[in-house]
């Protein structure tokens, strides 16, 4: 697992307050009770801080799963 992959997992675990052994690849927005709209904004803020990027509004709205979050970060120059 790359360093950035580990960082991404860690951000999700901490921002959504979910167990470390959660299958993050299967996580979807509103698919679990912890990932609601309020947590989404906190997740976005945590991702931006961790990866030193600023997402576009369309990215924030479209970031509906863990894999899409990874794709979004790739778009902003983060390598996995």
């Amino acid at each position, binding site marked *: 697992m790359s360093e950035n992959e580990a960082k991404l997992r860690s951000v999700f675990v901490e921002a959504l307050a979910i167990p470390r052994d959660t299958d993050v690849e299967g996580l979807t927005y509103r698919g679990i009770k912890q990932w609601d709209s*309020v947590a989404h*904004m906190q997740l*976005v*803020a945590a991702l931006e801080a961790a990866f*030193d990027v*600023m997402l*576009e*509004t369309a990215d*924030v709205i479209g970031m509906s799963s863990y894999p899409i979050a990874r794709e979004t970060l790739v778009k902003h120059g983060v390598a996995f």
Partner: protein
Amino acid sequence: MLAGRVALVTGGSRGIGWATAELFAEHGAHVVINGRSDPSARAKELSERFGVETLAIAADVAKAAEVDAMFREIFKKWKRLDVLVNNAGILEDALVGMIPDAMIDGVIDVNTKGAIRCLQGAARLMTRAKRGSIINMTSIVGTNGNEGQAVYGASKAALIGLTKSAAKELAPQGIRVNAIAPGYIDTDMVRALPADKQAKLVAAIGMGRAGTAKDVAKVALFLASDLAEYVTGQVVGVDGGLRM
């Protein structure tokens, strides 16, 4: 009162926006001045007079892509934003029945949609620090109405709904959202009103004079500062007792 804070003032190169940018810089804030035309000279002036960092951003708040780019520039320079003054606005009058569609779009795009876009961008930067103050510049026309200003009034009344809703939503993030409702303020924008209308307005002001841009800026300074740390969701009138 704002030492080291980063503040963005939209429409900051003249009128109330400029007075606010000036007062914020005087109180130690690093100021981002936004305007539709290049506000670099204004930003340079503040740096030289007050020794603060400044950033000039030419962007039209009516254009989503330009607003996104503006917040990315702020992020690039400071990684944060502490204060937003949503001040960019245009004033156009037309009597009901004679309001062109293009005028509705133009006024709402800048005054309302522009403010929503900026609030959203600012809230995202402020969420990281779990602190921030957003000030929406509404108007006494938004709270009380005025003939010939149905569209302008609607665009400004919308900011009150925006303020109250966003204040509730963002309070848990430590972000305060308030509005200022200036009355008759002596700026270029209102000087464009017909002389008889201006005289009628002054006659209706309890304090007997038009307000100054600095009168409004002082309230913005209070709302931006920690003096107002428990104040959110409020609309503060700055109108000298104007009856409308």
